[in-house]
């Protein structure tokens, strides 16, 4: 059995930090959660991730592992407790990795663009792009879930974690922008999935509460306007 000397360097608001925490919860692996102070980077973070200087970083024994989805795959390969996070079939694995890349490279930047958009027209256009992305992901859900509750099937898997970590940010964006993104009519499966994901045992304690995240977002926006 692998040593369980595990630390996660991160912060409670970060969706990327949620990913390895969910994965460790799935595997029932205890870890020490070392929260970075917002606005500064600890010596441990700079030493463990000199290339990017970003959270999350997982430190297993003495070894640092960086980049959230790389950490999730590492966790899945080291521990066989709980259930498998990546699908067992190579083709299904490739599909999950394809959509996770799409979410990180295209979809989430699109979500962030909504709050940065200036003017109603720009906001509307940004929102439409995010919704179009959700429609693609709805289709992916139908194909991957094969009639079950999650992208991973009966249980939460890699793609659930990759997308689900952004649900709190999605809700905050909807509330602050007074827009609807995750629509029960347009993407009914994703709508149901969001509820199931958020209340899953491996997720609920690490998903930030919407109100708290919204307050944090407001502080960030105020800071960026002041600078």
């Amino acid at each position: 059995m692998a040593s369980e000397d595990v630390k996660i360097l991160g912060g409670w608001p970060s969706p990327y930090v949620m990913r390895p925490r969910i994965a460790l919860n799935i595997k029932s692996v205890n870890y020490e959660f070392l929260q970075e102070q917002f606005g500064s980077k600890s010596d441990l973070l700079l030493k463990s991730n000199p290339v990017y200087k970003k959270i999350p970083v997982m430190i297993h024994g003495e070894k640092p592992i960086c980049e959230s989805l790389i950490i999730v795959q590492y966790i899945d390969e080291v521990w066989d407790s709980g259930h498998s996070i990546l699908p067992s079939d190579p083709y299904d694995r490739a599909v999950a990795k394809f959509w996770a890349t799409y979410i990180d490279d295209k979809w989430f930047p699109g979500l962030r663009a909504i709050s940065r958009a200036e003017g109603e027209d720009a906001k509307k256009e940004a929102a439409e792009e995010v919704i179009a992305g959700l429609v693609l992901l709805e289709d992916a859900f139908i194909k991957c879930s094969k009639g079950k509750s999650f992208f991973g099937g009966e249980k939460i898997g890699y793609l659930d974690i990759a997308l689900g970590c952004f649900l709190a940010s999605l809700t905050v964006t909807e509330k602050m922008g007074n827009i609807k993104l995750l629509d029960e009519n347009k993407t009914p499966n994703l709508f149901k999935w969001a509820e199931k994901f958020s209340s899953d045992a491996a997720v609920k304690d690490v998903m930030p509460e919407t109100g708290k995240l919204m307050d944090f977002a407001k502080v960030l926006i105020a800071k960026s306007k002041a600078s």
Partner: protein
Amino acid sequence: MAEVKLFGNWGSPFSCRIEIALKLKGVEYEFIEEDVYNDNKSPLLLKYNPVHKKIPVLLHNGKPICESVVILEYIDETWEGPSILPKDPYERAMARFWTKFLEEKCFPPMKQASWSTGEEQEKAKEEATELLKILEGTLSGKKFFGGDSIGMVDIVANFIAHWFIILQEITGLELLTHEKFPKLGQWLDDYLSCSIIKETLPPKDKLTASFQARIQAATTSK
């Protein structure tokens, strides 16, 4: 009908990666040339990669796999032969990390340094130099990024070994030299003398001509 097909382009470093991997595993495949640079994509490509409409796409038993790094991992998991990713989970995480580093951090400024001018170019050159120093560091004590033999990171670094080196020659840029980066220089020599690499990289003169044509087109359209 071939069970493995690869949609690619002769001049693309991305589809080249896939060819290297398939050859490493000894997999026979049909290469389908897509005229992507003239925006003349086939209906089949658009059908198999509707989200990005890009090459490479690997078709295995009728099922498409897209995104070159995803395809590389799929190939490694599906066929026997030399490993593309290490077996040890920590080493795998490192290989995936450096692959991502190359793609997201290194290649953009290297491309920018090659194609831009003036202040933009100077900035890109500085950035690329810092990143090459990091890469140089990772080669300590290793022949290839993958160790004794070529792995995922080496395959993805095909852009550096061939496309970037050719661009340097054309533009007179001297970012990556044996003097400045002795380990990377040695890696270049070793990499380019691997038989699979030699037989898979697009011909240098053809690539040079195509880059020169692009530069010509860019300067005349100003």
